[in-house]
């Protein structure tokens, strides 16, 4: 059902767990299926210096969160904002069609976290 990259990120998720002293924490959920992701970002000079997450969801949701956090680590906020769930799915080497929507949660969490941070800094949200 899943390729080895997806299974690897599911069984050995990168950046899993809580973070001490994060700059931003967001929790997003999909009302439809009850998937939830909590994302922790540490931001210095508009760069994501550390990131971690927790996810309640299927293997696709966990693997997508894991891959997405890898892809935004040490990136600027602008670069992180531009990351789409399609990029994450591509980096995972693809997901089954019916599981593509499970990858949206990570993108949602990243964008919401960035806007919370921007508002806190007195900027307009993107």
């Amino acid at each position, binding site marked *: 059902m899943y390729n080895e990259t997806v299974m690897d990120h599911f069984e050995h998720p990168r950046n899993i767990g809580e973070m001490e002293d994060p700059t931003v924490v967001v929790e997003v959920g999909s009302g439809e299926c009850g998937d939830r992701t909590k994302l922790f970002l540490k931001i210095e000079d508009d760069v994501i210096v550390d990131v971690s997450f927790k*996810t*309640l*969801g299927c293997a696709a949701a966990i693997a997508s969160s894991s891959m997405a956090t890898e892809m935004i680590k040490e990136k600027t906020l602008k670069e992180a904002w531009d990351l789409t769930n399609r990029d994450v799915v591509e980096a995972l080497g693809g997901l089954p069609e019916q599981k593509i*929507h499970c990858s949206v949660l990570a993108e949602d969490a990243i964008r919401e976290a960035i806007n919370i941070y921007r508002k806190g800094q007195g900027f307009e949200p993107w």
Partner: protein
Amino acid sequence: MNPSHAPDIPTVYLDHSATTPTHPDVVRAMLPYFTEHFGNPSSLYSISDAARAAIATARTQVAAALGCSADEIFFTAGGTESDNWAIRGMTSARKKEGNHIVTSSIEHHAVLHTCGYLETQGFSVTHLPVDRYGLVDPAQVEAAITPETTLISVMMANNEVGTIQPVQEIGAVARDHGICFHTDAVQAVGHMAIDVDAMKIDLLSLSGHKFFGPKGTGALYIRDGILPDNLIHGGGQEKGRRAGTENVPGIVGLGAAIARVTIDIPGHRERVGALRDMLVQGISGRIPDSHYNGHPDKRLVNNAHFSFPGLDGEALLLMLNRKGICASIGSACSSGCEDMSHVLRAMGVPPSYGRSSLRLTLGDDNTKEEIEYVLDVLPPLIARLREMAAF
């Protein structure tokens, strides 16, 4: 499932309600009918005699398992066909008398979707509710009957949570009102004694691959004198009621398999029941916040069904697969994150319990060592998934 677990980990198969391996004795019984005794049972020459005789034997074997006459057994291509035939055939045959079907809200899709199709053809269907254990109330069956009702269809045992329905009481209600009673017994055969007369059953569906027989084989019991319309039209096989050249090896296998699993049902119940109870007690004792779904005693002897809120069932299933354990989930986030199964929903199981449910169904081929292995493997996997999701 791909990728599979490492080759050095033995497989622990705990999904017998999905299917079972064809037993070697059953395969052995079938083999001559692929080659030596290949003759078409409808042909007159003597090389077909063996095939004809074998079908007759199988018919007797199935009849013995149900307490009926061999004349009342009709071979089909599986449980789904039997359900379709019983429901479509019976409602069609009685169309002049009415257009109402009474069924439950926890039926297998073979019944549920057949009734759904009939709704598009002008029939009305009552889907009876169940209690939190998944039980249908016979009094509600009676209350649902209208002058238009021509069929009552309630399963003998549920395929997800294993709840055994009060079939005998429902049969009595149907008989009192002169309404035909069909039961889907696909999950029940081999796990409990079945007597179509005592249970007042008019039509009963069964499927070979659920009890160590071959896939693509099934039967429909039709009480003498009851005449559902044909579903499969064509040649005159099965006394002109189910067309198509007989699947002789499959029918032989079905007969051999049902004889095998009904020869000692009390012994099976004792052996598999002990393993199931060990599994249930082990899980309940070792895994915090685990919830046993279904009825505590009115359930299939081989069924254990749990919810572990705080995780996703598919994720758990994949991790179990890596450990060589084959199980099943009660709810799949497959197409657009569909919600949980209609069975769990009908029982009032909350969504967080539904999405974290796990079905383990045992068979005579399981061992105590396998159950111990599962009890060692499962708690840390659940703890890990919960930790990944604990906010």
